[in-house]
């Protein structure tokens, strides 16, 4: 039986890796992937607490998080396509339209 703290530590490591990838990589698609990694680490933490408290509500929340992540990925990738059509680039350094 694996203690729940291992899963929690794995979730923290995943979240930190997601933050690092979000700020290190400079193109929009990889930044979206980093966001997905962070959402998944939150899912893992929810499931860990749901198991440690013997409640099923955490699994329901994970279900909704997956739903919202799917919606976010669809809209975000559509935005990436539009940006690529206008700028011919998906590097976020090229998106300086609002820089003062």
């Amino acid at each position, binding site marked *: 039986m694996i203690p729940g703290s291992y899963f929690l530590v794995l979730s923290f490591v995943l979240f930190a890796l997601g933050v*690092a990838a979000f700020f290190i990589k400079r193109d929009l*698609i990889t930044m979206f992937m980093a966001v997905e990694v962070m959402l998944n680490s939150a*899912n893992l933490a929810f*499931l860990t607490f749901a198991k440690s408290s013997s409640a099923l509500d955490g699994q329901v929340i994970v279900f909704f998080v997956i739903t919202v992540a799917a919606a976010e990925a669809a809209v975000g990738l559509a935005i990436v*396509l539009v940006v690529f059509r206008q700028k011919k680039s998906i590097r976020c350094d090229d998106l300086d339209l609002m820089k003062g």
Partner: protein
Amino acid sequence: MIVSKDRASSVLFLVLAFAALGGVFGLLDAPFVAAVQVLVYAGAIMVLFIFVIMMVDRRNDREPKKKNLASIFAGILAVGLLIELLLAAREMVPGMGNAGPAGSADTAGLGSLLFEKYLYHLEIASILILAALMGAISLARKGTMPK
């Protein structure tokens, strides 16, 4: 995923990571969530990513070399966040062991909870999916964007 230069291979690594995370979810007495994770994440969302990379990727669009300062700051931020999270959870972690076999940790209990207690949340989530679908279609459609 961080160190890979190629976006397509980093997507494939991410598929592997999500499938493995689905296995971890299965270890946590959540078989239905594990199945949903593998189907939705490692299947659908990653296929969406691969399609967008296929439409967008160009060979001359590589990572430049001059990003050391931002990478160092990002590494410091990530390590600091990890240490902070571990410190925040340290008091709580020894208390949470395995709380024994959960009583109704099966798919039927999850379904009844989802369709009875959280019915409105489910409906709102479905409306969100519908709105996101229509928004994605209207965004990615050709010919509607101003020049």
